[in-house]
């Protein structure tokens, strides 16, 4: 964090290209932060999802600025194209796309406490960045400078060094798909309906005609 002011002074004497970088960063950062605030304060969940798309596009621009071209493309395709669409699909499917009263505060004092804790955490992280030695490296382009493209570097790394984690993520995706299907499946109509604990009184349980033994498949 010590170089924040240094960036400005260096940029004033740098070439034309650096102004493009600084300007792009400023615009993308503004988009990211505006979208993030919009996600939190929007009353309608659909508006939150659209604000999330804005933030994700801003992050993709920042990835391009840092020479992570492949990740920028994946960010747009996977996040904006798949994850947010999934969010919107569930919002529409459940019909919860109505305005929510976010002014009501069910827990007294919870909101100021949350703001205070978050501000404390952010300050701590910023101070940590300032005092630690992590941020002393000079800015470089990503990856060893071998003249290869970002995609080639990333692909070689994924299929050699990180091959086992790559295979593990494939297994993780299969497990997630199976889990989603199991969770979203309606219980078969013949089976005993699952009660919520609030609707079932002790008399109900005693009087309910249970399924005959051996009737279940």
């Amino acid at each position: 964090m010590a170089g924040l002011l240094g960036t400005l002074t260096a940029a004033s004497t740098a070439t034309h290209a650096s102004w493009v970088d600084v300007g792009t960063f400023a615009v993308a950062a503004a988009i990211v932060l505006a979208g993030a605030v919009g996600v939190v304060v929007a009353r309608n969940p659909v508006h939150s999802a659209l604000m999330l798309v804005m933030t994700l596009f801003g992050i993709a621009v920042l990835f391009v600025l840092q020479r992570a071209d492949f990740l920028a493309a994946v960010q747009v395709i996977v996040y904006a194209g798949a994850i947010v669409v999934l969010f919107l699909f569930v919002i529409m499917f459940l019909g919860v796309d109505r305005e929510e009263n976010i002014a009501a505060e069910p827990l007294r004092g919870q909101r100021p406490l949350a703001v205070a804790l978050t501000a404390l955490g952010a300050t701590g992280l910023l101070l940590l960045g300032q005092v630690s030695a992590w941020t002393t490296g000079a800015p470089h382009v990503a990856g060893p400078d071998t003249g290869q493209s970002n995609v080639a570097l990333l692909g070689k790394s994924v299929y050699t060094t990180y091959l086992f984690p790559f295979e593990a993520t494939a297994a993780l995706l299969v497990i997630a798909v199976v889990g989603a299907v199991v969770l979203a499946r309606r219980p078969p109509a013949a089976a005993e309906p699952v009660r919520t604990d609030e609707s079932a009184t002790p008399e109900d349980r005693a009087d309910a005609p249970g399924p005959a033994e051996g009737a279940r498949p």
Partner: protein
Amino acid sequence: MTVNPDWYLALGVVLFSIGALGVLVRRNVLVMLMCVELMLNAANLTFVTFARMLHDIGGQVLVFFVLVVAAAEVVVGLGIVVAIFRRRSTATADDLHAMKG
């Protein structure tokens, strides 16, 4: 001379804080999941920044894996939301107090 990496790290900190604040103050489960996505994106931005600073492509590979885990998390999370909604007709975290002591 490009933008100093410190700016990217500061932006990541602010983005993560906004996401954490959203998880704490919002009660709609879907919006809470979106705020978790904000926090994951802040971590991704930090990973890419360190990959650029330290000359190491490993940071970008890690972002790749975070993307996969985020996708799996959203799929299972939304499946749970749908399953809860089918029984309770609510997507508000305050109404899910069945295990409250």
